[in-house]
């Protein structure tokens, strides 16, 4: 009996390969490739859901893949975002309706599913590239000035981050003779007790991992490409970058860095520990993201900086975990990170898609286009308002609960200051979120006429707003499930 994960991988992979052929057989029919991909991705979500509830071993993968629930959550989130983007693209990419666009989306989704389950650095690297390469092309899909500029910057920075990860893997392999993550982590721990030279090399390897993953996770100071890439790329692709590939960066970091933390402190010195590194990065990322977001004049750029700030909140879980691996706070922190990844994917995804619809219908991306939007596009404006309140962490929306978990996980330890900075940042970020909501509902727009809101966009908005409010009202079940997955990973 073939397992569901294999079935999913084969299904998405075959779709990705065969979609361009569809054009040859059927001629250039409008949106057909998109419909096919949406059906396939929806079916994959069902299969992945079944697989996550009841993980079984994957026989062909050996030790390359680890079919645990943590990977399942990330696979579901990333495929879900890809599905939302595909459905939104029915209207957004209607003018081109190029099957290659949907084929590349499928390849990215496949890379993210494999990455979520990777347990070997070789598999992780191949999946990382499979996820990244199609997004370089997609970012430049418009072949216009800005889109191309975004894709040049993104592709070069992305290639550099892969090179850095590759170098880190080569050092880890040289020191341990293995590429299996659990073995690498165990032998790194053994190194600490022996020669100091290898310890230094191991620290270099770990820091290179932090930098390489940090580029995808949009951690300050590795964030400089984010605003340009998100603004220039087609907005549907910015959604993929912010809500899906970034989350895939997080699962890679959780798998590699947190496995190593369990056994390893960077050096014998109490100051230079992995927990301190993460704490400094988290505080920098939150603060820089929020302050830069405040002065933006374009919606996609504002969302890009807010996405950087949210990555800072997610890093808090890493601080709690690497500070005291195995403790209750560690488990709480990682639960908070995974829960916030899930919530942020929904909230940021829907916010970017709303921005995509405004761009599509009004041909404008600057904040002036949002004046009086509450009267012109009521559904879009409501969606944006809910997403923004969720991102700011207003109860009882889903973003509040995950931020609460993250803050609680570090509040009562040596990293209480990180919790304090997170709370201050959260309050500060409400400044620009509430300002946009005010512009949409109170300010007068330049013309009061109604604008059409296409049905597929409305469907996506309804589902995702439902998730934000639903998880916010009933967080207990989701938190229990996530913490179960985290405990089986960490324990």
């Amino acid at each position: 009996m073939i397992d569901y994960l294999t079935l999913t991988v084969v299904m998405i992979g075959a779709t990705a390969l065969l979609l361009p052929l569809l054009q040859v057989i059927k001629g250039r029919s409008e949106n057909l490739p998109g419909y096919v991909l949406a059906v396939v991705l929806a079916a994959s979500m069902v299969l992945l859901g079944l697989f996550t509830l009841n993980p079984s071993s994957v026989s062909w993968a050996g030790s390359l893949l680890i079919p645990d629930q943590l990977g399942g959550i990330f696979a579901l989130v990333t495929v879900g975002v890809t599905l939302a983007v595909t459905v939104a693209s029915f209207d957004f990419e209607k003018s081109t309706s190029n099957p290659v666009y949907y084929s590349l989306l499928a390849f990215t989704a496949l890379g993210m599913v494999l990455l979520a389950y990777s347990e070997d650095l070789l598999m992780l690297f191949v999946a990382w590239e499979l996820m990244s390469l199609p997004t370089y092309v997609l970012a430049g899909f418009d072949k216009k000035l800005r889109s191309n500029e975004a894709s040049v910057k993104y592709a070069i920075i992305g290639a550099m981050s892969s090179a850095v990860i590759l170098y880190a893997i080569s050092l880890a392999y040289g020191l341990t003779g293995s590429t299996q993550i659990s073995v690498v982590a165990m032998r790194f721990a053994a190194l600490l007790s022996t020669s100091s030279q290898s310890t230094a090399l191991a620290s270099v390897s770990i820091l290179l991992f932090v930098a390489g993953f940090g580029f995808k996770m949009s951690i300050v100071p590795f964030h400089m490409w984010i605003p340009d890439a998100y603004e220039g790329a087609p907005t549907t692709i910015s959604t993929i970058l912010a809500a899906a590939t970034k989350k895939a960066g997080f699962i890679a970091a959780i798998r590699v860095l947190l496995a190593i933390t369990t056994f390893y402190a960077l050096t014998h010195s109490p100051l230079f520990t992995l927990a301190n590194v993460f704490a400094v990065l988290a505080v920098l990322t939150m603060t820089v993201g929020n302050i830069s977001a405040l002065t933006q004049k374009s919606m996609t750029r504002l969302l890009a900086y807010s996405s950087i700030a949210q990555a800072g909140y997610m890093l808090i879980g890493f601080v709690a975990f690497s500070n005291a691996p195995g403790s209750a706070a560690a488990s709480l922190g990682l639960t908070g990170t995974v829960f916030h990844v899930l919530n942020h994917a929904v909230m940021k995804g829907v916010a970017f898609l709303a921005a995509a619809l405004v761009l599509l219908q009004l041909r404008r991306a600057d904040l002036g286009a949002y004046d009086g939007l509450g009267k012109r596009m009521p559904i879009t404006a409501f969606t944006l308002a809910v997403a923004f309140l969720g991102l700011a962490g207003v109860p009882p929306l889903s973003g509040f609960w995950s931020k609460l978990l993250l803050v609680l996980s570090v509040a009562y330890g040596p990293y209480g200051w990180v919790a304090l900075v997170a709370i201050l940042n959260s309050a500060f970020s409400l400044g620009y979120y509430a300002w946009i909501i005010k512009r949409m509902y109170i300010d007068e727009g330049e013309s009061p006429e109604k604008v059409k809101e296409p049905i597929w966009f409305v469907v996506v908005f309804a589902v995702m707003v439902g998730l934000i409010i639903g998880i916010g009202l009933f967080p207990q079940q989701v938190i229990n499930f996530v913490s179960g997955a985290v405990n089986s990973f960490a324990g």
Partner: protein
Amino acid sequence: MNSLGDFVIVSAMLFGIGVYGLVTKRNALRLLFAVELMINAANLNFVAFGQYLPFEGGAQTAAPNALGQTFVLFSIALAAAEAAVILAIVVVAYRLHKDVDVSELKSMEG
């Protein structure tokens, strides 16, 4: 040149040259060269470690560790794919700008 340390030092130098190129150069093709240097530095590491660190599963074995050589084959193939994609993007940039200088790419600021 026949000890592991020499290979690691050469590889570290290659990596350093790559980083230097990325920081100082402004031509998109040169940036691609720099990235390729970094990737090949890692490849050199893999081959050298595979040859000189013959242990698998913790026990010393006579044969070289084949994992490093395997990894290099994957990474060369992926580097080729990456170069193809980036060159295609740079070709489009050249058509739009008649130049491949990345410091010219600043239509978005803020």
